[in-house]
């Protein structure tokens, strides 16, 4: 098998994950997109392990480690999200601006992002 196929698939999957992380508003969906990015890395690790024929199987061992770390990450992340939801009553990332600049409120930020989006588009 050509190495290009899994490498390109992993790159595209990583980009989809980047889009999800940046564009989603619900925190749980952002965590889902992070899982997609981690899976792209897993695919790269497995493909390069098969390509290099590593005697130590470092790629597959690292893939198992990544899967475990991803499981721990989503457990902790969901615990934090639930805590935030219980404290503030929302799971929207855009509304969690308690640590932001106090001079700009949510409407200003929203209008700012819309303007930026129009400028880019």
């Amino acid at each position: 098998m050509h190495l290009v196929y899994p490498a390109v698939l992993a790159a595209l999957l990583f980009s989809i994950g980047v889009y999800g992380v940046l564009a989603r508003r619900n925190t749980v969906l952002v965590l889902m997109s992070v899982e997609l990015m981690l899976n792209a890395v897993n695919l790269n690790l497995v493909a390069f392990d098969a390509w290099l024929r590593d005697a130590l199987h470092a790629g597959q061992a690292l893939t198992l480690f990544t899967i475990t770390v991803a499981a721990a990450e989503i457990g902790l992340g969901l615990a934090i999200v639930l805590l935030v939801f219980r404290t503030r009553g929302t799971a929207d990332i855009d509304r969690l601006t308690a640590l932001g600049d106090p001079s700009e409120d949510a409407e200003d930020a929203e209008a700012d992002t819309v303007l930026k989006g129009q400028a880019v588009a």
Partner: protein
Amino acid sequence: MITSLLASAGPLTPAARSFLSPTGVEIVFLLVGIAVLGSAVIAVTTKQLVHAALWLVVALGGLAVEFLLLTAEFVAWVQVLIYLGSVVVLVLFGLMLTKAPIGRSPDADSGNRWVALAVALAAAGTLVTLVVDAFRTSWIDLGGGGGSAAMTGQSLFRHWVLPFEALSVLLLAALVGAIVLSRTKDERPPKPRPGKLRTGKPVGLSSVPASTTPPQES
């Protein structure tokens, strides 16, 4: 070490294998990869939050098939067990516990969607160009059963024992941390809320409402 790695790698010279005559494994890989990409795109763009989690199942299951095609059997089954078994269930739990709307929610994407799309397209273009340019002639020589459970277990418990144990400690720490974070409150009895009568006092007998009781602490 790098030279030995490169020497043990696949052939670096331009191979005679053409992209125009794909093998059967490549065809299956491409088809499953298209399914994975499509379901991932739906998972990050759909307006229905629960459907996003279910499309994530399709994407991760397709990735398990890709692992199988790359002869990493053990990793594929671990992927099925952990991702499809626990991570997606955790995500669904999270969606339900944060009272995600079941139907279609119009504000699922934030306002900077187009910036995100531009960043993602730029990342995809850069990465794909780089990867295609670097690995255009590389060939994976599949076969040999390098990813069977026996081989993975041998390498894991012969060469990777210390990271493995450190990882179990990490999992334990994450578990304890999640429990500590999601515990509701300490064990003290709840303070009386203003506007609510104390329990044990009959309502009709006491003319003093509970809101006038002195607050214990502010």
